[in-house]
């Protein structure tokens, strides 16, 4: 089971969207923290960004990734393993990689520019939010992916999400 998580995690670290997510967070953090001298305002703005961005990006990205991995997950499930084991491994690989992206994107600028107690609380909140919303992404996937392709609902949902994010 640990191997599946490890490979999902490593696969995601090389994913372009995760890198873009990290970079965007890093740019935003450096900008907001460097903007005024007032560190409390900077931290508050960063909190707003976190509360706005992290849930949306995390849910969308994890749901899309799981949908794209549907056939691979089916292949893994055809092995003599429990369904919950595989799903938990996919979940943990995804949650850990998104958390790593958040910690690098927001955590690093915070630690460099503003190493106060409140910063660490923000980082912790971001990680917790990531874990929560990855599980919502997984829930969306599990609820929708068990519909048959015949109904077309899964494919239309998948298509609309895909077009939303890729433009």
């Amino acid at each position, binding site marked *: 089971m640990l*191997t*599946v998580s490890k*490979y*999902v995690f*490593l*696969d995601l670290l*090389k*994913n372009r969207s995760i890198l873009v997510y990290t970079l965007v967070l890093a740019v935003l953090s450096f900008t907001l923290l460097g903007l005024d001298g007032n560190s409390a305002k900077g931290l508050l703005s960063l909190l707003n960004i976190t509360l706005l961005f992290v849930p949306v990006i995390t849910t969308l990205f994890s749901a899309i990734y799981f949908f*794209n*991995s*549907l*056939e*691979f997950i*089916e*292949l*893994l*499930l*055809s*092995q*003599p*393993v*429990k*369904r919950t084991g595989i799903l938990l491994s996919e979940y943990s690989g995804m949650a850990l990689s998104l958390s790593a992206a958040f910690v690098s994107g927001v955590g690093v600028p915070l630690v460099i520019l503003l190493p106060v107690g409140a910063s660490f609380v923000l980082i912790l909140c971001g990680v917790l939010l990531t874990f929560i919303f990855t599980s919502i992404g997984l829930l969306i996937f599990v609820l929708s992916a068990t*519909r*048959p392709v*015949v*109904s077309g609902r899964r494919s239309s949902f998948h298509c609309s999400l895909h077009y939303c994010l890729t433009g």
Partner: protein
Amino acid sequence: MIRIENLTKTFGKFRALDGINLRLEKGQAVSLLGPNGSGKTTLIKSILGLVIPEKGSIAINGQLIRNHPSYRANIGYMPQIGRYPDNMTIGQVLHMIKDIRKDHTNYDEELYLSFGLDKIRDKKMRTLSGGTRQKVSACIAFLFSPEIYILDEPTAGLDPVANELLKDKIAAECAKGKLVMITSHVLSDLDGLTSHIIYLQDGQLKFHESIGELQARTGESKLNKIIANILTHADSKQICIS
């Protein structure tokens, strides 16, 4: 070996499987045929535990499959479309699968070598063509030398050389007394390979017979002629052409 009783599966209002009763024994090469949407993939997924039926039961070697994932150690599955994480290499995918099956270390790497996958083991899955991904899927299905093979459109997308290698491998495994279930729309690929035909339509079992009986009944020897013969002679309302 596989005993399916009264298998029924409905998705919302759509009845994918309707009271299927089947018995499959060792050493058979069973072709699962039928029009699109007839329930072939749902039947395969039910055997694999990917779909849980609401009525009926499936028993493999006498053991009911519900809630016991360990029976899948004896099944090799090759999906119709193989999709893999983009950034993993062939070697990493195989390593992951082998790690999931830690207890089984006796690998059958014949297809891995004959398909030339060892030479491209460091290529990322994202860079592979569809046919090459199919070869990886085939390799995984045969890797642990299981008792039962379930191959969903195995030859679709393979080049002619790989096609022949796979057919030879399937024939060799049948000769060893394994049970092979194949779904395919390319009936000519199944000629000479298949021993029994199962024909599904609208979730129901229309017929399940050996190739010998069908050849005698229709007077044809090639599979597409046999099926065409049965379909044209059947009541046109009951059986439709795939």
